[in-house]
Structure formats: structure tokens, C-alpha cells
């Protein structure tokens, strides 16, 4: 409850900050301080300090998995604010409101990581979707941003409708007429056509939110059209939040029925890996390539829903941490560039060696090269499925796709180190470089000692 209430209150504070603080830099500073406070609240909650004793009537359920996810998501948002806070404030004329909307998104994410009832799932998903529609269109004078916002809003509204229809079916099929997760997958209707219809409709809408193929068609356009800082936030923290809701829903409510629905998730995974990786190869713009790469990464994350064991839980948290940090770092560099094509990266290593080195680490991690966090994360995902003994063909296919992904990630590295390019002016302050390099070191640290992160998940259990 700490994170939900604190993030909502901080959102309101940020909303009013625009009245009192006139300079963008002071608003950014306030946002960073607020984020530190929120992270502290989430960490304290995990250590057992609950400051808001609220009777939730079982609507919310706080377990270590969800609370630890909150900590990771908030830490990633803090890194995001530190790296690109200035760029968020520079999107338009309402810097306070942009930060307020981001805090409301975080409130939605902390609900999505702790829901115990479909009602709360719905409200959580809506709370983080609606501010995002706005943030996507916040660059008002850019037609592409307007188009992306409208497209995202319409598609998102349809997917919400599909989710509601699924919830209605599940309510009808549940034994006692209840929205609680533990009542959904049981009773004489378990596995009946009505329940399966509801389940698949929910699966479709959740797949839309995490942009798994074949429900990914909005992703490239929206990620491309949105202001680059917003894309960075959407592709990492928000996607992870939707994913946690997805995994919680299918683990807690339908874990016993998994033989009925796992094949659908396997098909989703197959298409997501295939379409994400193959289309990313043909992109001319790095921003669009990263949009497709985020689809491809979701393909790997979906393995945790196929596994549904302890290793999957550990792995998905590691995956989210590593993927979010790497993508946030890459987008932070991309935001400072004027041109998003591959040619713009030509010769970057000579001019900005620190930024180029960190970007190389981020790209290596996304590709899953050993010694980086991305390798361990992919290893955990695949091992969790191997543990169940099914879907061996999908594992082989995923490894092939990971090999394909190396091609388009290395294209950027190659441009930075082995090509000559005109000199360009990027505003990379020393503090920015220090942050980038520490993110890169953190990713390597997680690649060598993933236990540092994963063991947190079990300390409180015992």
C-alpha cells in the first residue's frame, strides 16, 4: 500500500509544482527527490514497514514478488529521471504535469503488481494506460506524435473493451460469481468453454498491453511517433508493469489450468520472437529498431509464463531489471541525438568514447552476450521452461532468434566503432557520462553475480 498511496500523492504534488516552481531544472530536481522518496517507501514496504494500514477486503495482495518488482521499477524510473529528466521537462510547456502523469503511471503499476481481484487489475491497467495516451501525444505540434497518441488511444480502448468482455465471461463462469483470483480457475466450470473464452479474451488484451505479436501492430508507430523520452519509459517500465500483471493473473488465477492455455502462450511466444526479430533487421531508424527489439524481448519474457516456477519468477525480475536499464540508457543517448538513423552513429566512438562504450555494453546486454546481465536473464528464462520439460522446440527457436538479434544490435556497434562520420554536437555532460557508465557497470555486475538481485526475492520468504 505504501507505493500506491505515495505515488498517487507525489503525482498530486508534482501537478501543483508548476505553480510554485518556474524553472524547469527545479521541477526536475523535485521529481528526482520525489522518486527517491517513492523508492525508499517501496524498499521499506519490502522490509516490513507498512505506513498505511488499510483494510483492502482482499482486493490487493502484497507478496514479495510484487513488492520487489515495485522496487526494481522505481529504481529504473529513478535512473530514467536522472538521465533524461531534463528532456522530459523539455517536451512541452507543462513540465510539472508530465512528471505528475509519470507518477500516476507508477501508481497504476504498483496496483498491477499487487491486485488480487479482476476489478483491481482493470483499474490498475487503466491508470497506467490513460496517462500514457496523453504522454504519447504531449509533443502537440508534432503531427506524428498526435497520430501516435490517437492510434494508441483507439487501439487501447478496444483492448480495454476486450478485457472487460473477458472479465464478464470469467465472472459468469466462476463457481460463486466472484472477481477474486483464487475463485476464478476452480469449480465445476474449470476449463469449460465459457471460462476458456474469458481467459483467451483476457490473454488477448494483456498481450496487447505488453505488445506481443500478433497484437503488436500499434507498437512501432506509437514508439516511433511518441517523444523519445516517453518511448523510453513506455518500452521499459510500463511494459514491465503490464507483464507483471500478466504473469500474476495467469499464475495465481489459472495456474492449475495451465495445460489448457499454455499452447496459446507458446504460439504467442513463437510469433513474437519471429516477427520482432525478423522485422527489426530491416529497420533504417534506430528508434524503430529499438521498438521492434522491445517486441522481440517480450518474446523472451513470455517464457516466464510458460515456466511458471520459482526460476521463472527469479528470471523475469532479473530480465526486467537488466532490459529496463539497458534500454533506458540507450534511449537516453538517442534522445540527445537529432537524427535517429544508423548513419548518425557513425564515428561516435572517436568523439564520445564514454557514451559509445556504455551504449556498446547496453547493446551487448540486449543481444544476450555472456558476462552481461542480458545473458543471465535469457539463461534464466530458457532454463525455467527447460525445467518443465515441455516446449523444447520453442527453446531452440528462441536461441535461433537470439542469434538473429545479434545482427541488428551489432549494426549500431559497428557504426560507432568502425565507420567514419562527421563530427556532431551532443550535449553530454560529465554527470551524464558518469551515470551511463555506472548503468553499464551495473549491467555487467548483474551478469556476473545475478544472485545479488535474485536472492532478495527469497530473504523475506524464510
Amino acid at each position, binding site marked *: 500500500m505504501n507505493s*500506491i498511496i505515495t505515488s*498517487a500523492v507525489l*503525482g*498530486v504534488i508534482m*501537478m501543483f509544482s508548476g505553480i510554485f516552481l518556474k524553472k524547469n531544472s527545479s521541477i526536475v530536481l523535485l521529481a528526482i527527490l520525489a522518486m527517491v522518496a517513492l523508492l525508499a517507501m517501496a524498499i521499506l514496504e519490502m522490509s516490513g514497514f507498512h505506513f498505511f494500514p*488499510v483494510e*483492502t*477486503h482482499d*482486493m*490487493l495482495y502484497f507478496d514479495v514478488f510484487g513488492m520487489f518488482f515495485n522496487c526494481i521499477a522505481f529504481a529504473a524510473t529513478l535512473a530514467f529521471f536522472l538521465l533524461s529528466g531534463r528532456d522530459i521537462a523539455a517536451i*512541452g*510547456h*507543462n513540465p510539472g*504535469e*508530465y512528471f*505528475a*502523469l509519470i507518477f*500516476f503511471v507508477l*501508481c*497504476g503499476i504498483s*496496483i498491477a503488481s499487487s491486485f488480487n*481481484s479482476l*476489478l*483491481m487489475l482493470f*483499474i490498475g491497467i*487503466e*491508470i497506467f494506460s*490513460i*496517462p500514457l*495516451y*496523453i504522454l504519447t*501525444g*504531449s509533443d*502537440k505540434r508534432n503531427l506524428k506524435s498526435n497520430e501516435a497518441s490517437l492510434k494508441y488511444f483507439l487501439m487501447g480502448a478496444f483492448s480495454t473493451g476486450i478485457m472487460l468482455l473477458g472479465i464478464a*465471461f470469467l465472472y*459468469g463462469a466462476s463457481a460463486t*460469481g466472484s472477481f477474486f483470483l483464487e475463485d476464478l480457475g476452480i469449480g465445476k466450470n474449470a476449463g*469449460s*468453454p*465459457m471460462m*476458456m*473464452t*474469458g481467459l483467451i479474451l483476457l490473454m488477448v488484451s494483456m498481450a496487447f498491453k505488453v505488445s506481443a505479436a500478433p497484437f503488436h501492430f500499434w507498437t512501432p508507430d506509437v514508439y516511433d511517433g511518441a517523444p523519445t523520452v516517453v518511448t523510453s519509459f513506455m518500452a521499459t517500465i510500463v511494459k514491465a508493469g503490464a507483464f507483471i500483471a500478466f504473469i500474476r493473473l495467469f499464475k495465481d488465477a489459472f495456474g492449475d489450468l495451465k495445460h489448457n492455455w499454455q499452447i496459446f502462450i507458446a504460439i504467442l511466444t513463437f510469433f513474437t520472437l519471429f516477427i520482432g526479430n525478423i522485422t527489426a533487421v530491416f529497420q533504417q531508424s534506430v528508434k524503430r529498431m529499438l521498438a521492434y527489439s522491445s517486441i522481440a524481448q517480450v518474446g523472451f519474457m513470455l517464457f516466464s509464463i510458460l515456466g511458471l516456477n520459482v526460476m521463472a519468477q527469479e528470471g523475469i525480475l532479473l530480465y526486467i531489471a537488466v532490459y529496463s536499464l539497458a534500454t533506458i540508457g540507450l534511449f537516453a543517448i538517442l534522445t540527445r541525438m537529432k537524427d535517429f538513423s544508423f548513419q548518425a552513429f557513425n564515428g561516435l566512438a572517436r568523439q564520445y568514447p564514454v557514451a559509445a562504450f556504455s551504449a556498446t555494453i547496453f547493446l551487448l546486454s540486449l543481444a544476450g552476450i555472456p558476462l552481461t546481465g542480458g545473458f543471465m536473464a535469457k539463461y534464466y528464462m530458457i532454463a525455467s521452461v527447460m525445467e518443465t520439460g515441455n516446449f523444447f522446440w520453442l527453446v531452440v527457436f528462441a536461441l535461433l532468434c537470439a542469434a538473429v538479434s545479434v545482427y541488428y544490435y551489432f549494426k549500431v556497434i559497428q557504426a560507432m566503432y568502425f565507420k567514419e562520420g562527421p563530427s556532431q554536437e551532443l550535449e553530454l555532460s560529465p554527470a551524464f557520462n558518469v551515470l551511463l557508465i555506472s548503468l553499464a557497470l551495473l549491467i555487467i555486475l548483474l551478469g556476473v553475480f545475478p544472485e545479488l538481485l535474485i536472492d532478495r526475492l527469497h530473504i523475506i520468504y524464510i
Partner: protein
Amino acid sequence: MSATQFLFWFLSILALFSAIMMVVSKSPVHSVLWLIVVFFAISVHYVLLNAQFLAIVNLIVYAGAIMVLFLFVIMLMNLNAETEPLKNKWLKITGVIGGGALMLVLVAALKDADIRNRIAETNKGEIGLIHNLGMALFKEYVIPFEISSVLFLSAMVGTVVIGKKE
């Protein structure tokens, strides 16, 4: 056939017919008017299910406020039938196939719905009164009720961000 049953069938047929008319009407203004008929029919369904408050709110909010807003928007933007873009033939065919497949699944799902044991309680108009609704909303469902305020607040902030003149 009792009066309630007769009313139920009549309203169901009316709602379905108006919904189909709403989709097939060429003029957007007619579509909106048919949609209002759908809302009225569904509101009376709510009354049959003892949800009086819901019925009134449905009428006031949807038929009253939202649909009038729709009419204004359509009239102001002058959306006539002539300006409607031509639709691809293949798009129509795939749409029919997709929608038909979805309908097949939904019919299959509802086919063996348990209708004998969970019959609607008619003529016992206690459940849907505003008193009982308030008790449920502020006791069991107080958390979703309060948290949805964040949703509305963020929507309001968003409206200002998008709508404010720069």
C-alpha cells in the same frame, strides 16, 4: 407468458434490432439515434433486474450526456455520408470472417451457461436501491472506489495538458 417475460423478449428484440440498425445506418446522426434506443432498452433491462439506480444513471449519463455530446460533435464536424471513405472489399471480407469466428466462439461459450439455477429475481426491488449500492460501494468495494479517483485525476490532468492553448 407473464408480463415480465413478455417485456424481456420485447426489449431484447428491440435492443438487438436497434444495435444492428446503428451499425448499418449510413448517416452518423441516425446511428447515434439508434444507439440511444439501445441504451433505453438496456436501461429497462436493468429495471427488470432490480437495478433501478443503475438504470437511471445509465439513462442520464449515456443517453443523456454522452450521446448528446456525440450528436453535437457529428453535427459540428459535418460528417455526412458522402465524405465516408471507400472501404476495401478484402477488408470487408476479412472483417466478416473475423467477426463471424468471434461470434461462433461467444455462442459456443454461452451455449451451456447455467440459466436454470441463477434465474433473475424479479419483483423484489430491494437490491438495486441506492442505499444498498452505497453500502456495497463503501464497504467491500471501497478500495477500487477510492483508487479510481487516481484514474479520474490523471484523466483530468491529461485533458488539461492536451487541451490547453500554448
